[in-house]
């Protein structure tokens, strides 16, 4: 049995997901179709047994946590105590108890008294995997704040502020937009966190606030296309990122149904494509390459041929196995490591 929290803009639901692959048969008082039998016709008794059936997955809503958010919810994160969770919208973060649906506590509020002065919003938040009093939240200006709930009831003052100084050589009118963090995820170990901004993935050591320890370029070839991507709104796309179970590989999505993996140890990276045309089930995915400029080699794709409507925003990695889930606009792909 699994519990999953979902959110649709402003309402949070807790779902129970269960699998059923057996059903009971052989009741004494009911027919197989459910109709009651006339007790007088029962002459023998039997013990009902479980028989296999086609696997059925059921999702049923168990709790609805409503009306605590004025703005769109961007994150939910369950605490390591499995009793509480946080929900974050553009300006506020609330703390809930899983059993209490009509009340939540506001733990972060960055709404200015005068909305004219608003220049920064919350973009993502997550609880620390091991410390149940610690959480982080990221902003549209590329900063991450780590907060300790023991410090005060309202965590408006951060314990740590993570921010990388801007590279002056890359400065443009789009610098702020592309620095906006779309996702933040702690490593399973709890020692690192990963952030995703428009062009890169950054790994931060929680003990070092002034710069990330690793940076991986997801699609640097888009840097010269920022104006077009601003015009067609792609620059506002929010990509997620995820860690593998051992924290040695990180993965994130891109355009043209491409997704990228970076091996932190070998420093190698790979680009793969999630599409039905190019991959039959059970075939090994072929690495893809984007040609940024110059002569395009065979099998490479030029930047101008990329389909910006095919974006992979959501990816997930099984916490223990090498199985990944990748969502394109209309399809969900599940891939696994090839079995030797």
């Amino acid at each position, binding site marked *: 049995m699994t519990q999953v929290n979902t959110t649709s803009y402003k309402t949070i639901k807790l779902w129970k997901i269960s699998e059923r692959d057996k059903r009971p048969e052989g009741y004494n008082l009911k027919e197989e179709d459910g109709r009651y039998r006339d007790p007088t016709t029962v002459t023998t008794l039997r013990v009902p047994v479980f028989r296999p059936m086609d696997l059925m997955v059921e999702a049923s809503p168990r709790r609805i946590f409503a009306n605590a958010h004025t703005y*769109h919810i961007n994150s939910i994160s369950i605490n390591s105590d499995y009793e509480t969770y946080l929900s974050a919208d553009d300006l506020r973060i609330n703390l809930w108890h899983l059993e209490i649906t009509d009340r939540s506590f506001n733990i972060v509020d960055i709404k200015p008294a005068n909305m004219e002065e608003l220049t920064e919003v919350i973009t993502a938040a997550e609880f620390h995997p091991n410390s149940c009093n610690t959480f982080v939240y990221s902003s549209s200006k590329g900063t991450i704040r780590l907060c300790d709930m023991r410090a005060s009831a309202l965590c408006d003052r951060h314990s740590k502020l993570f921010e990388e100084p801007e590279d002056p050589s890359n400065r443009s009118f789009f610098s702020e937009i592309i620095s906006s963090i779309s996702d933040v995820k702690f490593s399973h170990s709890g020692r690192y966190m990963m952030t995703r901004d428009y062009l890169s993935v950054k790994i931060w050591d929680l003990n070092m606030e002034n710069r990330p320890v690793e940076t991986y370029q997801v699609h640097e070839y888009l840097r010269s296309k920022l*104006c077009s991507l601003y015009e067609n709104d792609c620059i506002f796309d929010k990509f997620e990122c995820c860690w593998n179970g051992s924290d040695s590989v990180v993965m994130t999505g891109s355009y043209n149904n491409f997704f990228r993996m970076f091996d932190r140890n070998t420093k190698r990276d790979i680009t793969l494509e999630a599409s039905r045309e190019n991959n039959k089930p059970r075939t090994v995915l072929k690495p893809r390459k984007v040609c940024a400029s110059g002569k395009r080699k065979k099998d490479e794709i030029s930047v101008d041929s990329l*389909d910006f409507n095919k974006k992979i925003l959501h990816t997930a990695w099984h916490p223990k196995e090498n199985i990944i889930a990748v969502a394109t606009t209309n399809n969900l792909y599940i891939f696994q490591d090839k079995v030797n």
Partner: protein
Amino acid sequence: MFARGLKRKCVGHEEDVEGALAGLKTVSSYSLQRQSLLDMSLVKLQLCHMLVEPNLCRSVLIANTVRQIQEEMTQDGTWRAVAPQAAERAPLDRLVSTEILCRAAWEQEGAHPASGLGDSHTQGPVSDLCPVTSAQAPRHPQSGAWEMDGPRENRGSFHKSLDQIFETLETKNPSCMEELFSDVDSPYYDLDTVLTGMMGGARPGPCEGLDGLAPATPGPSSSCKSDLGELDHVVEILVET
């Protein structure tokens, strides 16, 4: 621009004039493209608050971009000062609606003196750029969407200032939307006119990079692919700042 008589008289200075014009072309090309980015951003902001469920993050990012452009324009003297009344209102975001609104009107009436910046400092760049920016005026449909009698009257009538946009995002009520729209001139909502007027319309001279711009539509558009090549050199110039 230059009367015939003047040209004949200044034969000796022709090279200087051409050199100045060439320099002017580079400067004005960047200014035009920056202006185009500013206009695009303002349209996006307007479209933002027309949505039933506006995206606050996106609006904030676009508004910050607008402020950045404005700040740069103020620094290099392109930004002509407002009438004193608005200049008293310190917050930079207030300048967005009034300044941009009013510029086209001022150009038609004749450039106002740069009161806030000091005449001696700004006279040169302002007058140099004057011919360029007045060339933009025809791109607006003849007193259609941008109809204005004078700067003061238009404050708040056509272009909602940033604070009103954010307030809208807060309340997000369909009836609220209607209230906001009620006092806006109807020509504004002929978006096609506005957008085609701004982009791809009759543009003189150094605007080749912008000719190929497709009308901005909300949401990703598949025309991006064809636009990418055409916009590259626009981006190069913008990114080089």
